[in-house]
């Protein structure tokens, strides 16, 4: 097991390395921040000083080497806009996004797993049809569209919750629904498909033949075997949720990670963009590794490492 973890972390490091190289090259090749950031009346000497301060002088490979060495120390440069280290700026904005994605995931699980169970128990029934329609709609439009639809309905029309902002649980309701609906569909489909398969298996027939009541068969025998893939699937939704959170945060003015990326891009704050990419790649790698380890811990049939 430890060798498996090391190997995965090694592969993750390579991914991170290539990703930083791509972003680094893109940012450097496309524009000179000294021209973009300084006013047009700045002299060439001003620009040179500016580049020197930001580590933008010297040949590209050397700059990249400096960047990597700093990265290894956990230093991702200074934000151009905020007088603070880029990593600090990014980490500060990560909290609201994690709360939002966590809440959306919880909503998806709470709403969709029971729906998946209902549809698997009576395929083709009314619950099944309704659940499938619900999922098809959720996947048919980006979360920001549902955000606006919900604002119009729940905040403008019926005045149940605030239109936008961040801070109280009431503010979290609409963004959670909008974001969770989008990712819920996959969860419901997976529950339904797995449970249908399990319900058709021999040991369920056996349990029924023993004369066990149907709810015992369902809860004690079938659902346990469906829970496992659900755990891993829910965790793997993190990337989709984080991506969806970008536009949802923009709509609801949530001071999160996604809206930070949009701001940093439009303000040419490249150190923050780079830091955001590094942080999300690291998160992604760690979460995927965590998912695989949880899977192995829960299912004794799975053993990693050759």
């Amino acid at each position, binding site marked *: 097991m430890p060798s498996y973890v090391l190997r995965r972390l090694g*592969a993750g490091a*390579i*991914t*991170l390395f*290539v*990703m930083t190289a*791509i*972003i680094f090259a*893109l*940012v450097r090749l*496309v*524009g000179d921040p000294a021209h973009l950031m300084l006013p047009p009346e700045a002299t060439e000497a001003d620009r040179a000083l500016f580049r020197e301060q930001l580590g933008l002088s010297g040949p590209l490979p050397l700059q990249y080497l400096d960047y990597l060495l700093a990265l290894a120390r956990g230093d991702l440069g200074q934000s151009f806009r905020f007088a603070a280290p880029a990593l600090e700026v990014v980490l500060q904005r990560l909290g609201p996004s994690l709360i939002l994605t966590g809440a959306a995931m919880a909503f998806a699980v709470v709403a969709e797993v029971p729906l998946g169970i209902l549809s698997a128990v009576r395929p*083709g029934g009314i619950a099944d*049809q309704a659940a499938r329609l619900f999922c*098809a*709609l959720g*996947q*048919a*439009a*980006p979360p*920001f*569209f549902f955000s*606006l*639809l919900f*604002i*119009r309905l729940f905040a*403008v029309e019926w005045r149940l919750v605030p239109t936008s902002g961040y801070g109280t649980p009431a503010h979290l309701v609409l963004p959670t629904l909008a974001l969770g609906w989008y990712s819920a569909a996959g969860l419901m489909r997976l529950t339904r498909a797995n449970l249908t398969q399990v319900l058709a298996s021999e040991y369920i027939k056996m349990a029924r033949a023993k004369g066990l009541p149907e709810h015992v068969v369902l809860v004690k025998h079938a659902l346990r075997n469906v829970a496992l893939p659900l755990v891993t699937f829910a965790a793997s939704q993190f*990337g*989709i949720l*984080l*991506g*969806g959170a*970008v*536009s949802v945060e*923009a*709509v609801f003015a949530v001071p999160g990670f*996604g809206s930070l*990326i*949009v701001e940093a*891009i*439009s303000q040419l704050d490249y150190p923050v*963009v780079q830091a*955001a*990419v590094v942080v*999300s*790649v690291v998160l*992604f*790698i760690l979460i995927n590794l965590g998912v695989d380890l949880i899977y192995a811990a829960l299912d004794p049939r799975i053993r990693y490492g050759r």
Partner: protein
Amino acid sequence: MAADLARAITASPAVRPRRSLRHLARRIGFLGAVATLVLIAGAALLAPHVAPYDPNAINLGHALKAPSAVHWFGTDQLGRDVLSRVIHGGRMSLLIALCVVTLAGIGGTLAGLVAGYRGGLVDDVVMRLAEIQYALPPVILALVMVGVLGPSTVNIILVITLANWARFARVIRAEAISLRHRDFVLLARLSGASSWRIVLTHILPNVKPTLLVLLTLDIGLIIILEATLSFLGLGIQPPDPSWGTMIAEGRAYLERAWWTSLLPGAALLATVLAANILADGFGRRGAGGPGGA
């Protein structure tokens, strides 16, 4: 044979009515999806001829008018006809989706076929590249790249392609691996066919059903991704209409004039929903399951 089959079917009357009802519902859904897509694609293709007004014609005297017989979808904050803008915006969204699906489909499929059939170093390289694409959510990857490169239509197409090819590569690779040891492939190799010939004439035709499903599913994902970029101001640039920018511009008028943002969104939803239903139907048919589309 046919008579046996007919007898076998009629011999189970208890199951038949319900199943055929569901079958019918699915058929109606599928045909409805096809009709919706034909309608939207047709309107997009013929936009200059079918749009009732010039999509960029400003008429401040008629700003934010509710939907009526004159303006079916109402007018926006500059008095522009929302329906005409939805039609022209759809033209852009569908054009981009088509370009990306073609590029990502061809690139990803070829990469997957070669990786799966050849294995070894090629496989390692392709899968590592796919992993890098997967390491960032597509929205964030596309945002960062468009942000750096600039939001021109060509850049948007390139960036969305780069954020979408890996799904094709992964799925097609898995299929190619399962096909490469089949008898007909071995026979082709024994008869001296080149690797390219085997991949293109023996393996590719066998992954077609999967590819069809992936392509139709991808249309929806791409439309959503492009709309997200446009919504965040890093996609199609105003005054050119696109569903994403229209939703973004209408956001400020959500209380007074919901139609400026929600009707373009509804058009987007109808398109993606239809594409997904189509993909579902193709998947059922490909799987050969009961109640095929």
